[in-house]
């Protein structure tokens, strides 16, 4: 994508570009369909209802969720995590979470702790971002009810070993909530095979949809307390919010234009196959890391390139240089877009030793090409020389 636009290395923040069909579907939904889903019963409403159902069903195909009623829509992964955490945790329970968690987990937990509702324990992570599984084994308490795990780190790209973590938790009757903000759409996720009880995902990153979309998978048998209640278009005579899924956890008009785009993003992934996307991104990650390793004075966090253990998120620092300044030069001189700082994950930066300064984060995506990486590496080489000179 090295046309007139800047070189985009910020797919971990939001993916760009989107597949062409994503833009078109969102526009068509607003221009031509646009009935309020679930509300009126006329043909436009029905078309919107069908679109939303298909989006649940298609996400179900991607994550191996047989019952689409267990896919609840949210604004983004943060919203989904709030629905999961605040809907699941009961007074007096204990929660485990890893050091790689984003503020979307840390802040809701902090509120629940401050209000005296829960206690929690952090599972430390190594300097490459992988959680200390031995520590995990010693961290359970009799009242532990939930383990929250960041699937793919937005700082180091490290992918947590979900199968081992879920097995450990389930052996103790503890449920597992997975934050898949960085992994949904770029690595294979099978909620049944991997023992995921709740899966929070966003629509605008790896799933290639618009912002303002995302959702939460809730396994059968888990009845979350709703965070919000209100109009659903059904059971209007009752002053009680419907109990059946997915309406139980959804209130108010859904973002049908956004979901129309998300549906096309997920269809694109299914057509390309998740295995192919994963392979393409892994190759890009490896190529990027190999290019960066040639630059002296630049330190990469989690230079791991073993297949399936990382997503295409690479953090680095330069000796003696401020990461914000590097980001500024990258854009102002070379037109390269990235993200610098703490990436809303302060504990992750503490774990890898980059707190409070942070890192420069580069996140290529499915549409990035190797020429872009060559240009980026050349730019960084010049910047590092400047910094060391």
């Amino acid at each position, binding site marked *: 994508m090295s046309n007139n636009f800047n070189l985009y290395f910020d797919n971990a923040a939001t993916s760009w570009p989107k597949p062409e069909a994503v833009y078109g579907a969102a526009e068509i939904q607003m221009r031509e369909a646009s009935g309020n889903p679930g509300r009126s019963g*006329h043909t436009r409403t029905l078309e919107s209802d069908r679109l939303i159902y298909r989006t649940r069903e298609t996400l179900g195909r991607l994550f191996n969720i047989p019952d689409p009623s267990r896919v609840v829509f949210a604004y983004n992964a943060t919203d989904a995590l709030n629905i999961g955490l605040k809907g699941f945790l009961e007074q007096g329970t204990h929660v485990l979470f890893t050091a790689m968690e984003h503020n979307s987990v840390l802040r809701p937990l902090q509120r629940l702790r401050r209000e005296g509702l829960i206690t929690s324990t952090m599972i430390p992570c190594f300097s490459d971002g992988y959680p200390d599984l031995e520590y995990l084994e010693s961290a359970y308490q009799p009242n532990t009810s939930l383990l929250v795990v960041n699937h793919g780190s937005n700082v180091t790209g490290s992918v947590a070993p979900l199968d081992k973590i879920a097995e450990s938790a389930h052996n103790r009757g503890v449920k597992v909530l997975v934050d898949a903000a960085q992994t949904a759409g770029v690595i294979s996720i099978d909620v049944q095979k991997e023992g995921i009880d709740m899966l929070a995902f966003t629509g605008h990153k790896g799933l290639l949809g618009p912002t303002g979309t995302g959702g939460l998978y809730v396994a059968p048998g888990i009845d979350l307390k709703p965070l919000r209640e209100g109009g*659903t278009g059904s059971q209007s005579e009752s002053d009680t919010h*419907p109990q059946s899924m997915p309406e139980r956890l959804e209130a108010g008009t859904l973002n049908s234009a956004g979901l129309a785009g998300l549906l096309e993003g997920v269809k694109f992934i299914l057509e390309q196959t998740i295995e192919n996307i994963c392979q393409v991104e892994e190759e890009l990650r490896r190529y990027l890391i190999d290019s960066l390793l040639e630059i002296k004075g630049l330190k990469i966090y989690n230079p791991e390139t073993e297949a399936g253990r990382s997503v295409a998120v690479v953090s680095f620092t330069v000796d003696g240089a401020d990461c914000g300044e590097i980001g500024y030069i990258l854009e102002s001189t070379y037109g390269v877009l990235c993200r610098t700082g703490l990436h809303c994950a302060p504990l992750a930066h503490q774990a890898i030793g980059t707190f409070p300064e942070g890192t420069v984060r580069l996140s290529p995506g499915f549409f990035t090409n190797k020429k872009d990486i060559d240009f980026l590496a050349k730019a960084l080489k010049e910047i590092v020389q400047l910094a060391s000179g």
Partner: protein
Amino acid sequence: MASSCYITFPTTFFAIRAESILKKQPYAFKMVPVPRIISSSCGTALRCGCEDLASIKEYLLQHDLELEGFYKLEEEGLKTPIVVPLDLNGGGSG
């Protein structure tokens, strides 16, 4: 006087799921706004021939759908139809 049968649903999700599941089956049916004379939790109902009603109901229940009510409407032009609520418990055809 023509008659047709209706299935109502507790939520929109179940109405649309019913349509999605039945699309692959050889039933003639249509998703329609719930006739005003029927009270329903969800604004969309499934209209079908009364001869298919029991079989459609069974098929949907086998797929874990929640259904709300079953009705037979005697319709004549624009006159208010006559509604006959059907008790299909036990799989009877009503």
